[in-house]
């Protein structure tokens, strides 16, 4: 029995090409002289091939379809707190924009009066001579509205659409 196990070990190593060249040559000469060994080699070789040929199994035919439906429904959806945060951020941004563009500040700062001595070095002033008065108020409003629109677009594309698309797939 022990001899048979040693023999099988040798055969498996031969089939796996795990023998040194010397051992392989010696084993092959043993096969030629020993018919029992050759029979056992053929038997285990056939078992090996039989297993390789038949081991693969397949799941049900609609496996991929069913799984993809599930996967498309499990898209990462932001938590409720994230939505609240994002909505709050957009609203704050919008209101801040309106506030800052309309509000004219009447805040006065009471600072200690300090006499600053005149500098002995006179730096020549450069007259910029702006021909047009830049409409800063309109520019700032435009920027803020653009920012708000871009934020809403991002919210729609990145969060709302995937979420409702996923819900539609699962329903």
């Amino acid at each position, binding site marked *: 029995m022990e001899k048979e196990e040693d023999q*099988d*070990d040798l055969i*498996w190593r031969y089939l796996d090409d795990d023998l040194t060249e010397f051992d392989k040559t010696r084993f092959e000469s043993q096969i030629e002289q020993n018919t029992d060994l050759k029979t056992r080699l053929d038997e285990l070789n056939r078992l090996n091939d039989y297993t390789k040929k038949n*081991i693969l199994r397949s*799941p049900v035919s609609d*496996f*991929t379809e069913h*799984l993809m439906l599930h996967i498309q429904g499990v898209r990462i959806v932001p938590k409720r707190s994230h939505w609240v945060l994002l909505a709050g951020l957009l609203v704050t941004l919008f209101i801040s924009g309106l506030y800052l563009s309309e509000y004219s500040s009447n805040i006065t700062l009471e600072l200690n009066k300090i006499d600053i001595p005149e500098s002995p070095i006179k730096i020549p002033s450069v007259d910029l001579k702006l021909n047009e008065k830049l409409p800063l108020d309109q520019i700032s409003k435009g920027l803020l509205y653009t920012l708000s629109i871009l934020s809403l677009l991002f919210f729609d594309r990145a969060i709302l659409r995937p979420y409702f698309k996923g819900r539609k797939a699962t329903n």
Partner: protein
Amino acid sequence: MRSQSNVNHLSDDVIIDQVINGHTSSYAILIERYKSYVYTVALNIVKLEEEAEEVAQDSFIKVFKNLKKFNRESKFSTWLYRITFNTALTARKRITKQTTETLNDSINPFTNQTDQTEQDDQKKFIALAMSRLVEQDAMALTLFYLEELSLDEICKITDLSLSNLKVRLHRARKRFAKELQLLLRKEAVNL
């Protein structure tokens, strides 16, 4: 619409990049490519068809959710089989707790099939012989025969050392060959 021949040549990395960039439908290509292998690995551990399908689905879902974290230091298949192995082991423990009878005796690889071809019979014998092995041995042997992975890759999947794996494979093949021969001889006698 992509033809089958066009998508078959895409590497796993290319498909993964597509999925990460938002083309979720590309994940179906990976599922089609590996579903049989994942299912076979799962079946040889949990030993029940329905459970094996559930394990296979769970494995693909876990992989999808963590695709961005895949570091590509190993092959995608190595990572996928590792997740499948762990998921199957968890399922096997749960099944063992739920049932009193031994699963080895209750395996029925063809619960839903009535017309069995000769190929199905051959697969049945493989499955029955595999069911006689312990989970780690079944896993190692399945991976060894399935895709003829290198021993290093099987080590990464099963977390076994190389020496331990060689011993397991050696033991598993001997036991498997013995069980398979008995089953085939019995079938020949019955016929």
